[in-house]
């Protein structure tokens, strides 16, 4: 079993372990379309994407949110996650390498739950921001 993570061990300002994804390939858009059911051709058909004024296909925003979810739950067990939200800030293209990072911004006791709140960010190799967001998790106490 992976090591338990406790409320007492987390401090405001702590960094979430970084996650690097990519370089992204168009094949992943096809896989994500099938898995999620989002068949908007903007994500899989270059001709369609060009016809609406883009250079080519762009990634599903929800795929990038999925990367952020991966980053969160490789650190904080899935069962402790209570809230997770993102704002989509920019388009992601094939070839981009996405880095997800975050840090703890708040700790609070809410009833019988011990909550940590973190801000998260996904950006590409040029520092362009794709997604900003936040999550909250209720962690167990040592004592």
């Amino acid at each position, binding site marked *: 079993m992976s090591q338990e993570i406790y409320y007492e061990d987390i401090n405001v300002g702590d960094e979430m372990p970084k996650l690097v994804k990519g370089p992204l390939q168009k094949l992943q858009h096809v896989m994500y379309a099938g898995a*999620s059911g989002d068949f908007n051709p903007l994500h899989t058909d270059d001709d369609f994407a060009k016809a609406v004024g883009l250079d080519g296909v762009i990634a599903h925003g929800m795929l990038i949110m999925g990367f952020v979810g991966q980053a*969160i739950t490789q650190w904080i067990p899935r069962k402790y996650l209570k809230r997770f939200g993102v704002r989509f800030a920019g388009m992601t293209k094939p070839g981009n390498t996405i880095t997800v990072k975050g840090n703890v911004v708040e700790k609070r006791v809410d009833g019988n739950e011990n909550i940590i709140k973190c801000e998260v960010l996904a950006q590409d190799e040029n520092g362009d921001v794709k997604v900003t967001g936040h999550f909250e998790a209720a962690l167990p106490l040592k004592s």
Partner: protein
Amino acid sequence: MADRSKQGKEYPPITWEVERGKIRELAKAIGDPNPIYLDKDTAIEEGYKDTPAPPTFLTVPMMWSSSMPVVINDLKINFANVLHGEEEYEYYRLIYPGDVLTGIPKVVSIEEKTSKSGRKMDMVTVEILYTDQDGEKVAKARSLLIERK
């Protein structure tokens, strides 16, 4: 522009039976190697009942049921002008294979905003509250759709 008379309107429910294979498929598409999503035995060792759904799984019933296009059409919004601005989940319990989810989409608000460049936009917030086969709350998904006018 988005039809404001639809604020507060609820739409026909989405019903979705959660399959282990679909959980694994989403994890693989994301490229998430976390074994709790892929392998039941590991998930049990880690304190789960079965392979739990990854954090963004609720996009699956929403997209496969085509519920969002129904809402967008009903709001008389032009698809070509819609951006997905935000997505947020509140989790009340884990989702596992075998769960039968029922989600009720609801348009909670429509507000006009003006972008920095002066362009008017309608900000449409749609919530889907999901319950399980016992009627217990599972999660709420909130999507912000931005209609550029």
